[in-house]
């Protein structure tokens, strides 16, 4: 496995492996998402408390999960890039940022739509989970703004990696905000001691959606990282050989 990871650090092998993985991840992710959505929308029984509005969970939870996972991935990649100086990790951060921002926006939007019938309000400013999720959206946007404004690539890489690491404190805050403070948002359902507190007929579509969205996110991450990698490696011989064929 270490040999595989070592190989992945090389831009050329990463590009090759990513190109072969993208169709698998994308198709399996989309398939799982379709299965999860159809089951969740039409076949899961209505909740006794929330009626049919709980079906938004099949969209809101995967989006929120991806938003936090993408940031954790970016924080880990920033750590790897700064400590071990593995350059491809910077490309991964660049690739993950727009996707994470979109999913954070989606999580906020679907959460707000869900909150309107359930809590009676589109938004609640005192709520810790809503505020920290919004903060995470600002962190994504701040990262992209900082990158765009520093002309030197190496400096931009390192400084924005520092920014990502500083903002990483937000992830445990979002996750534990429902435990530490009183919040409108409900507590943990899946990762509880004693097993998930949700019926199986509702749980399985949710798991399908989560896994499907993760695979889908993975495929788009590979696509965007591929673009970033080829952009950084445009002076290398393997890029020339790949793009121009054998017309040397």
């Amino acid at each position, binding site marked *: 496995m270490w040999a595989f990871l070592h190989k992945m650090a090389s831009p050329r092998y990463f590009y090759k492996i990513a190109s072969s993985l993208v169709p698998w991840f994308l198709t399996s992710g989309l398939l799982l998402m379709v299965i999860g959505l159809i089951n969740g929308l039409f076949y899961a029984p209505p909740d006794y408390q929330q009626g049919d509005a709980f079906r938004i969970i099949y969209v809101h939870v995967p989006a929120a999960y991806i938003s936090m996972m993408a940031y954790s991935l970016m924080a880990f990649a920033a750590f790897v890039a700064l400590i071990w100086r593995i350059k491809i990790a910077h490309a991964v951060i660049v690739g993950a940022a727009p996707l994470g921002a979109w999913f954070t926006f989606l999580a906020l939007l679907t959460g707000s739509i869900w909150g309107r019938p359930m809590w009676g309000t589109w938004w609640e400013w005192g709520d810790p989970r809503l505020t920290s999720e919004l903060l995470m959206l*600002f962190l994504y946007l*701040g990262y992209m*703004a*900082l990158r765009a404004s520093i002309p030197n690539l*190496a*400096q931009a890489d390192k*400084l924005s990696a*520092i920014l990502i690491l500083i*903002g990483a404190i*937000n992830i445990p805050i979002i996750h534990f905000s429902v435990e530490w403070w009183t919040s409108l948002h409900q507590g943990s359902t899946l990762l509880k001691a004693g097993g998930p507190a949700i019926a199986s007929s509702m749980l399985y579509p949710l798991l399908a959606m989560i896994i499907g969205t993760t695979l889908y996110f993975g495929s788009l991450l590979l696509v965007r990282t591929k673009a970033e990698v080829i952009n950084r490696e445009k002076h290398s011989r393997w890029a020339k050989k790949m793009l121009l064929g054998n017309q040397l």
Partner: protein
Amino acid sequence: MIKSNNISLLSGFNAMFRRDCFQYLKNPSQLLNPLIFFVMITAAFPFAINSSKLQLTQIGPGIIWVMAILSYLLTLQHLYSDDADDGCLDYIILSPQPLPLLVLAKICAHWFSSGLPLIIISPIIGIIYQMQVDTILVMIATLFFGTFALSLIGSIGASLTISINNSNILVSLLVLPIMIPILIFGARTIGLHQTGSTTISGLYFMSAYCMFALSFSPFASAAALRIGSE
């Protein structure tokens, strides 16, 4: 009393602190402009909103806190850019003293020259917003922690952007998300005191946030300064 030739950490801190304080004193207008901005805008709100006394006491803490943060952000731009412009920053980075220590000295000098006047001016604003004396004391306590935390976090934002000209908006954009918890707790603590609840938990949180920022901000700023001045 044996005099040693070793340069102690404390002397390095003192030297940097004194140098920065004197530099700020040499340009009093740089210090006064954000203060005047703070006073004028917070004083302008009651004119614009035309509110009753009850409404003023309710909206006062929030407005004062937001304006304090905004005017403090104005002072942050001079934290490293002045030294970077005339080349002193390279000497500071290359000095034998640990860079995080010198950064901490710069931050303390910045707080001394920009945060302390803000805290001293704030009772006047408190009176404009019809606050009682004990509420003003709570406000001073929250502003004390808040301005120091803002100095610490703002130095990270300023150090990340030294290689960019006209980076005020970007620094604000980077710093504000991390400052939101302090803003929330600061404004709400004053509001809680006005309604009679206990404020000590809010002050504990703000001091904890300060300590947390103190523990990583000098190191993060030092790393960013080294990278940014390559």
